[in-house]
């Protein structure tokens, strides 16, 4: 019997893996990928809650989360390209100043 708690625990585990990724990897692209994992954990929790309460709003919020994630990835990857071009590194510890 799969209950709401199962989905929420799965979502929490996914979020924790993303958290570990952000705090252990020092590469910009890896950090962005870990952020994507955390976004997806939030999406899973939203859909599971919407399903458990019979409310469609949970699915709609996922649309907005996906949109925000796409915008975030676009700008983040642009910053990563700029970093690789000007500083010739993707290591976040070596990029202390985010200005041109």
């Amino acid at each position, binding site marked *: 019997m799969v*209950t709401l708690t199962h989905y929420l625990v799965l979502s*929490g585990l996914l979020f*924790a893996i993303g958290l570990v990724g952000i705090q252990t*990897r*020092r590469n910009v692209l890896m950090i962005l990928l870990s952020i994507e994992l955390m976004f*997806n954990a939030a999406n899973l929790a939203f859909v599971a809650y919407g399903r458990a309460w019979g409310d469609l709003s949970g699915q709609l919020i*996922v649309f907005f989360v996906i949109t925000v994630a*796409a915008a975030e990835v*676009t700008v983040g*990857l642009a910053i990563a390209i700029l970093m690789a071009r000007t500083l010739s590194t993707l290591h976040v510890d070596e990029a202390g100043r985010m200005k041109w």
Partner: protein
Amino acid sequence: MTGAVWFYLFGGIMLAAALCVVFSRQPIYSVLSLLVAMFCLAALFVMLEAYVVAALQILLYAGAVLVLFLFVIMLLNLDREALARLRPFTLRGLGTVVGVLFCVQLIPLLSRAASGRSLAGVPAPPGTVADVGRLLFTKYLLPFELTSFLILAAIIGAVTLARSKQ
């Protein structure tokens, strides 16, 4: 009972793929593992009867976002050492500890899962395109319009940032 089997199958594959994303040395493998995780998550969405969201998950994440990641990783063409540097024994090992503790805290919840809110008794919300679209253009019209501003700002920001200076 078959639903539980599929849940554990897809959930297990998703967690394994997520671990591969975080701990893979090659960034290409990380992105491809994230693709696997996205597909498993879409399967979970289908099990939750959120069909539109599942389709969008594959179309938008797998089709757009991850392809963008692959483009950038191949475009930057960095060597392997510069890309993947995992140092678990420094202060950042604390991050791992925090994440693991977070996981451990979730385990007692599972013991209470049997008394949790069952999904079988509740009628599923109608997740067809027509229902979702109707709600999107009535109740959530203002946030929907505001996302266009967000995307516009992201486009302008990305073009401005990634443009070459000369």
